[in-house]
């Protein structure tokens, strides 16, 4: 029965498969006997099955551990890259915040300190990065290693994984051999190369097939000598060399002959020659040459002289494996054949069997033959290299001539068209040319034109051209040469046939041709009519002609003159001297037949000087002591500088305010003299440039004149330049007031007001107002001040009043004998003051705090967010 308890205890293990085979047997035996246990097992199994099926969909996909390890490798590799970076970022952001706040707070004390901190921060940052770089370098270092042979597939996986994750986790100093090994394993290709000799580049498939030929030499013929030394395939390598070359030659037949000779020299032979005649009469063909492989390259070199080498392609193919395979199969087939033969010889077995053997034998023989054929084929290819030459004859153009025709178009400007016309005709006659068209026309206004078309032989064309150049100015000379070839692509050395040169000559005179360059001049003159005559005289001297219709006799104000180009510059200079140049424009007409460069047109307009507004208008305000006298002086001054009084006006209706107004035009160069005169007469209060009203007719201004519009006003009507307000405490008011008034009078000042108040309590106030010249004011005020204790003093300067010798100063003087009052500040005032001070400082502090917060808060927020991201990314806290 102890079995029963044991079975009950181990029932679940039985179901779960946890029993050893012996125990299992034991359990099975018991189960056979015990119904209870059978029931229990059934129930347990039932529950087990239910649970199993229930959670079947919840089971992890098989390979959980492997997946975990894989994930561990990859994710930790990622994390290692990210973590230090985030950390660095955090550090830099924190530093930034700190320094920004510090900088903001310390901005006023001095920026030097801040810069220093910033530099330090940068340096720290840099050093961190440098460390990282060093680490990287370490990680990517590759050293020769011993582990290369070790890794099997699983091992390799493990190694790679451990490399990925372990390296960043290891302390920097600790570099276990295992770590390094796995690093190296990680870079298999580098390792591979590291094992090879340093000077040899990585092998390529081509190189290996060439059996010792150095790789990296794309054209084998560059080193034929070396090839030849390697040629005898001692190693048993079977290599097929083939080549293709393409030549362009002068003649196919002779080329083939040369090829035959060269090939014979190289112990080869010509396998096939194909040739065909192309539609253009040229021959194109292919020559297949067979030559021993060691001669192939010398052959190629020699063949290069055959003609233009257009293309060359040499290849080799390693058929060793194929060849040996074939040989093996052949051997096997022969053995089989022998065996079958033996069977037949022995003659054992039934007839039927023998027949079967015979049939088999036939099959094997067939196979042997085909194998032998294949081997022969390859042997042939290996023994003799095949070089295919494609040779074609050069494409020569038929000797069809290229015809060249030359057309010359000549335009001649000349004064005498008729004479030139006859000359051209005569010279064409002389050159035995053929005139195809000739016409001569006389137009109105002396305009003549002639057109001649002719053909001459090309030899005499040049001299004819030169002769025409003598006849007049060549305004146009177009030569075009058209060569017409018989075929589409003429060759450079094709014979050229020159046809007659055709000339298209047009001759014309310049009477009606407008000048290309036109100068439009507008002049202002004192006497326009005289200037007009002067211009006509000048034009005549310069050989110019007045353009018909260009002269306007009625107003005598404008005219048009054409002057020959060579004398135009002189004419222009002289023209400008005749009056004041208002405007000058140059118009260039397009360079066509209708315009000529031989003339220059002048369109001249003349203006009366006096009718033009001066270019500069000045409005002045002149303050004088006596307006009437000043007015007179002003007129004299204007006369003195040859000025022209345009208008003058004097009004003394209001005696207290006599004014005068005068408008004077003065030459510009006399301006300074006039200004001096003005300064002598009075003081210039204000000066302004008066904008000229724009009128329709008179848009021109004369720059040589300056217009003065002068308002003359009395000096006394001006306000005082300086106003002094002085309050002085003096012991004896009345006496001081009298003394000071005398002082002012002595300095020729005016006493405007003088009031003295005497009160019953003995206090006396005096209020005095003086007008003195400004030059005296300072000394006077000083004298006033010396009389007693100054209570208050203000000086106002009126900037609108000119500061000249006529400027006035007004002094408001208050004298008093009232005693000084003590400070009126009570306790309340003092309390108020200190409270307000305290309030000010409090407010200032709060404001500074707010400013500081505003400066740093965004950074703090960013830093906080980054910190949270960092927290979330990094793993949750480790063991408690």
């Amino acid at each position, binding site marked *: 029965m102890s079995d029963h308890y044991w079975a009950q205890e181990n029932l679940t293990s039985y179901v779960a498969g946890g029993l050893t085979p012996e125990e299992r047997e034991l359990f099975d035996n018991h189960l056979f006997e015990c119904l209870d246990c059978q029931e229990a097992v059934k129930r347990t199994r039932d529950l087990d099955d*239910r649970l199993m099926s229930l959670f079947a969909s919840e089971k992890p996909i098989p390979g959980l551990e492997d997946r975990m390890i894989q994930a*561990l490798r990859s994710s930790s590799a990622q994390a290692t890259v990210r973590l230090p970076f985030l950390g660095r970022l955090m550090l830099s952001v924190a530093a930034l915040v700190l320094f920004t706040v510090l900088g903001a707070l310390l901005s006023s004390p001095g920026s030097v300190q801040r810069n220093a901190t910033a530099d330090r921060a940068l340096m720290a940052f840099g050093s961190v990065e440098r460390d990282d770089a060093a680490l990287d370098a370490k990680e990517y270092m590759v050293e020769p290693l011993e582990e290369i042979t070790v890794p099997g597939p699983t091992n390799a996986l493990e190694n790679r994984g451990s490399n990925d994750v372990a390296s960043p986790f290891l302390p920097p100093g600790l570099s276990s051999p295992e770590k390094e090994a796995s690093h190296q394993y990680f870079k298999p290709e580098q390792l591979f190369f590291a094992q090879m000799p340093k000077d040899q580049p990585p092998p390529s498939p081509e190189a290996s097939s060439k059996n010792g030929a150095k790789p990296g030499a794309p054209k084998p013929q560059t080193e034929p000598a070396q090839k030849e030394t390697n040629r005898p395939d001692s190693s048993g390598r079977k290599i097929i060399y083939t080549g293709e070359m393409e030549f362009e030659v002068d003649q196919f037949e002779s080329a083939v002959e040369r090829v035959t000779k060269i090939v014979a020299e190289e112990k080869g032979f010509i396998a096939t020659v194909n040739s065909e005649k192309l539609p253009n009469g040229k021959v194109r063909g292919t020559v297949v040459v067979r030559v021993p492989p060691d001669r192939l390259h010398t052959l190629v070199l020699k063949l290069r002289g055959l003609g233009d080498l257009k293309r060359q392609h040499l290849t080799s193919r390693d058929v060793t494996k194929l060849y040996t395979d074939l040989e093996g199969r052949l051997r096997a087939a022969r053995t089989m054949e022998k065996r079958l033969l033996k069977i037949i010889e022995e003659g054992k077995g039934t007839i039927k069997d023998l027949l079967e053997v015979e049939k088999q034998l036939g099959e094997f023989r067939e196979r042997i033959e085909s194998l032998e054929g294949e081997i022969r084929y390859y042997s042939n290819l290996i023994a003799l290299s095949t070089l295919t030459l494609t040779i074609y004859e050069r494409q020569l153009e038929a000797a069809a001539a290229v015809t060249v025709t030359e057309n010359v178009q000549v335009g001649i400007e000349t004064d005498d068209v008729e004479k030139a016309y006859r000359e051209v005709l005569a010279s064409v006659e002389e050159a035995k040319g053929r005139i195809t068209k000739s016409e001569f026309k006389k137009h109105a206004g002396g305009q003549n034109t002639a057109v001649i078309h002719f053909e001459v032989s090309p030899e005499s064309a040049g001299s004819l051209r030169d002769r025409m150049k003598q006849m007049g100015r060549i305004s146009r000379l177009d030569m075009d040469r058209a060569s017409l070839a018989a075929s589409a692509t003429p060759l450079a050395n094709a014979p050229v046939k020159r046809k007659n040169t055709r000339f298209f000559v047009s001759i014309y005179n310049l009477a009606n041709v407008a000048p290309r360059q036109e100068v439009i001049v507008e002049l202002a003159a004192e006497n326009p009519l005289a200037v007009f005559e002067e211009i006509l005289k000048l034009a005549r001297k310069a050989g110019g002609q007045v353009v018909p219709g260009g002269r306007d006799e009625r107003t005598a104000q404008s005219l048009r003159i054409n002057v020959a180009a060579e004398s135009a510059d002189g004419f222009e200079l002289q023209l400008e001297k005749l009056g004041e140049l208002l405007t000058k424009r140059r118009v260039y007409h397009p360079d066509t037949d209708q315009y000529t460069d031989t003339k220059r047109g002048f369109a001249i307009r003349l203006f009366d000087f006096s009718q033009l507004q001066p270019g500069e208008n000045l409005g002045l305000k002149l303050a004088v002591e006596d307006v009437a006298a000043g007015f007179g002086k002003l007129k004299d001054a204007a006369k003195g500088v040859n000025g022209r009084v345009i208008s003058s006006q004097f009004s003394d209706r209001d005696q207290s305010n006599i004014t005068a107004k005068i408008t004077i035009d003065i030459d510009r160069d006399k301006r300074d003299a006039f200004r001096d005169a003005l300064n002598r007469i009075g003081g210039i209060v204000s000066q302004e440039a008066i904008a000229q009203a724009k009128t329709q007719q008179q848009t021109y201004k004369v720059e040589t004149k300056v217009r003065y519009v002068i308002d003359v006003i009395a000096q006394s009507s001006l306000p005082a330049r300086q106003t002094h307000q002085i309050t002085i405490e003096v012991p004896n008011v009345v006496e001081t007031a009298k003394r000071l008034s005398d002082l002012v009078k002595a300095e020729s000042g005016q006493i405007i007001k003088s009031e003295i108040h005497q009160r019953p309590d003995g206090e006396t106030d005096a209020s005095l107002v003086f007008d003195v010249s400004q030059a005296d004011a300072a000394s006077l005020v000083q004298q006033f001040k010396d009389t007693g204790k100054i209570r208050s003093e203000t000086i106002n300067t009126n900037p609108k009043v000119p500061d000249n010798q006529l400027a006035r100063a007004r002094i408001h003087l208050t004298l008093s004998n009232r005693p000084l009052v003590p400070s009126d500040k009570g306790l309340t005032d003092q309390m108020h003051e200190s409270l307000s001070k305290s309030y000010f400082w409090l407010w200032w502090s709060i404001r500074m705090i707010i400013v500081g917060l505003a400066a740093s808060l965004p950074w703090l927020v960013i830093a906080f967010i980054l910190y949270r991201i960092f927290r979330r990314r990094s793993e949750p806290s480790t063991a408690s």
Partner: protein
Amino acid sequence: MNITAAESEDTLVEQAKKGNRAAFEELVRRISRLIFARLYLETGDVHRAEDLLQETLLSAFRALPKLADASRFRPWLLAIAQNVAADAARFESRKKRDSSRLSSAEELGRIPSKEPPPQQELEQQELRAKVLAVLRGLPDEYRLPLTLRYISGADYDTICEQLRLSNGSLRGLLHRGMNRLRTELERLNVFSAAD
């Protein structure tokens, strides 16, 4: 207790502490199903459990040098798993609170499939939840072998290895655990309801 196994595990931990990846991976092989079982009991979701397992292992590997006593590796690892699960739960609840911030991938994962699961599957889910509740109610030593067997799909030997138990000691635990589970399930009429 299998003494030789314990020794080798301690050695492995020591090796892993020195940065030996292979050793740590061997540890992962030995212990990951156990942690998976624990995490599954926590979460009730096989994919989440697997994610958390991965996170746990990663954290453990990073923090391994900090582990002072190699023999305390298992409790330490389980504590990490516990923390990871708790962190994840916290993160989850926060994400639920502002669901607008869900990334699209997570959102996709949350969207239930368009077709409603078949009736049978629904019932299975319900049943699973009940059994899981019962399992959670059992003491650790009983529920872990059962979870390992039914959820992480470990066979008997693997359970032994994962729990570092001898064959014999597992038998008793398995037996008693199974019995308790059965009684609980029968008490709650879990399977009879399905029948």
